[in-house]
């Protein structure tokens, strides 16, 4: 581990380098490095520099507004917030998950698979493929989807169409691509018509072919760069996520499972309504993002990773055949019980993308998605917890309401927050192993961003801010004098100002 690099012993005597903001992630974060006279890294931190409370945005609103309202928290994963909120307010109207009408349950799952598919496609093809196809230290002009479109037009087009298909699933199920009102308290407000079902069926076989091809591609990229890809930013950690009762991969609803770095179970099939008994959050003075940890292991050892790598590591199997075959290959490539390579997030993410495509096809052939029994009712309650596996990991929504149905308390733990400590550890690993002692350049610093980007962080979700700041790299000598300064403007132009 590289925790010793969280705080330097004599920071006042060190050079400071700032990567601000981290690019091709959602939101505004920055990395600071403190270097000694020999350019040896003495401190590395990922900071979150803006904060605005989601909870404040939600409190005081009637609970039935939540599924629509929370979609506006984030432009990247609105459906995940929509469904997590819907699961929480199901409980407010007295409907537990097992009592949700089967058609409503399957429609929500279809909606969720569409969301995860489009989000994973965006991340891989748009944000990460430039690094993976052209190299981490390639010229900055190549690190964009435009360069991928030019060099790999067929691949890039598949990425565009995969993303588009996921958006179409969302549109058909919820009525709109965004601001849809598919899920309501106790169920869904519409089912899929035969015409809508047939429209989505037209392309699903092609989508599965492309999704499978993307898994083959990332496997090839990963294995052709061994051992670098297995070592880069790699940290052995605990992993947490939802799981089905039989141990299968689960994205929509299940119990909480956590495993340690050796693959041993820390907790299993835990009712997420009691998450407060298992997960706590701590704060640090140098960042606005909290640090969640598993209570049973304590603050120092209880931090964990969530998201695709955690889910594929944690599950015993995947119920769709091609994704399961891909999972077996993925696990076999690593000698240990768990795959700890941070860059393996990409591989795991595309296995999930394939699973989503297969699962969408299964659901489209299920007549329940056209059923008309869509809403259940029960006795009013005053507290509800909804948890879902969002594209980036486990997402918690927790609400309390008063006798007038007004939200009095809200607590959200978003996926990126759970990965906060891990992202910091990955940054420190890269700083220590790949940057320390070298002259820093923009391509070299992109290595830090590659490590963070593997987590697909949504810093807007984690900190509730919008990201639109330029990147700024400052190099100072031991006396604090600025000796070099690079600025990357929001349009991507680089300028040396020193």
């Amino acid at each position: 581990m590289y925790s010793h690099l969280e705080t330097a012993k004599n920071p006042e005597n060190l050079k400071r380098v700032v990567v601000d903001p981290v690019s091709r992630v959602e939101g505004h974060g920055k990395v600071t490095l403190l270097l000694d006279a020999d350019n040896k890294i003495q401190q590395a931190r990922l900071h979150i520099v803006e904060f605005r409370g989601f909870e404040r945005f939600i409190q005081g609103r009637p609970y039935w507004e939540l599924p629509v309202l929370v979609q506006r928290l984030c432009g990247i994963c609105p459906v995940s917030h929509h469904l997590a909120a819907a699961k929480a307010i199901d409980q407010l109207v007295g409907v537990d998950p097992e009592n949700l009408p089967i058609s409503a349950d399957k429609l929500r799952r279809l909606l969720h698979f569409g969301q995860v598919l489009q989000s994973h496609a965006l991340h891989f093809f748009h944000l990460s493929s430039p690094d993976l196809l052209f190299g981490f230290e390639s010229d900055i002009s190549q690190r964009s989807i435009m360069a991928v479109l030019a060099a790999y037009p067929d691949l890039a087009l598949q990425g565009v169409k995969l993303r588009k298909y996921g958006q179409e699933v969302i549109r058909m199920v919820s009525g709109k691509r965004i601001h849809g009102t598919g899920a309501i308290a106790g169920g869904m407000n519409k089912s899929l018509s035969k015409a809508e079902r047939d429209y989505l069926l037209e392309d699903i076989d092609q989508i599965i072919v492309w999704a499978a091809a993307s898994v083959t591609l990332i496997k090839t990229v990963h294995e052709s760069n061994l051992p670098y890809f297995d070592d880069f930013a790699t940290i052995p950690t605990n992993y947490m996520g939802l799981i089905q009762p039989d141990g299968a991969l689960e994205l929509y609803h299940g119990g909480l499972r956590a495993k340690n770095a050796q693959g041993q179970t820390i907790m299993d099939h835990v009712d997420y309504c009691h998450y407060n008994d298992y997960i706590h959050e701590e704060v640090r003075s140098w960042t606005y993002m909290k640090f969640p940890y598993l209570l049973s292991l304590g603050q120092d050892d209880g931090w964990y990773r969530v998201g695709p790598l955690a889910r594929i590591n944690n599950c015993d199997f995947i119920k769709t055949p091609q994704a399961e075959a891909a999972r077996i290959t993925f696990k076999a490539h690593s000698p240990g019980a768990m795959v700890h390579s941070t860059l393996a997030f990409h591989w795991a993410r595309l296995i999930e993308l394939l699973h989503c495509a297969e699962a969408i096809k299964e659901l489209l052939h299920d007549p329940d998605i056209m059923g008309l029994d869509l809403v259940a009712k029960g006795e009013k309650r005053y507290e509800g917890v909804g948890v879902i596996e969002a594209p980036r990991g486990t997402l918690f929504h927790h609400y309390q309401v008063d006798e007038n149905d007004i939200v009095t308390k809200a607590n959200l733990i978003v996926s990126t927050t759970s990965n906060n400590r891990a992202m910091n550890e990955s940054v420190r690993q890269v700083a220590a192993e790949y940057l320390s002692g070298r002259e820093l350049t923009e391509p070299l610093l992109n290595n830090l961003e590659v490590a963070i980007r593997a987590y697909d962080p949504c810093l807007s979700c984690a900190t509730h801010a919008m990201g639109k700041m330029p990147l700024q790299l400052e190099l100072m000598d031991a006396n604090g004098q600025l000796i070099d300064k690079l600025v990357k403007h929001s349009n991507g132009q680089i300028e040396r100002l020193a």
Partner: protein
Amino acid sequence: MIKPILVFGYGNLSRGDDALGPLLLDYIEKHCDLSKIELLTDFQLQIEHALDLEHRSLVLFVDASVACINRCDFSPLTAARDKSYTTHAMSPAAVLAVYVSIKKQAPPPCFLMSIKSESMELGAGLSSAAENNLQQACLFVKQLLQQPTLNHWLQQTSY
């Protein structure tokens, strides 16, 4: 049947003046003949929106802009690889560039309606200045859509 004119207003209704694009769509929906006009909204522009440009004769993007010089500006768009890759959001010019890359042809005539905005805080309402700017933009776009020809739109551009 794809409608020949696309009006694409993007932004987040719950982020103050960022709502200007979607709010202009609300106005068009109530005040314009939509038989040949499709309205589309999203939080931000993305790669797949290039596919929404297919088979259109005119496209109008509508967005809030803190950099807008006048209360609202109307300008033609050209495809550009402008490196707007550092966030999840793309510029209209970059979306057009994606269209050129994947379709191997020029995009349909596209224009941008920028409406001057002040702040985009989560949970904030529309600022009074933005509300006034929106009114002017709505009237301008309504007039544009009454005469949806390339020549007319080119004559109306701000610059």
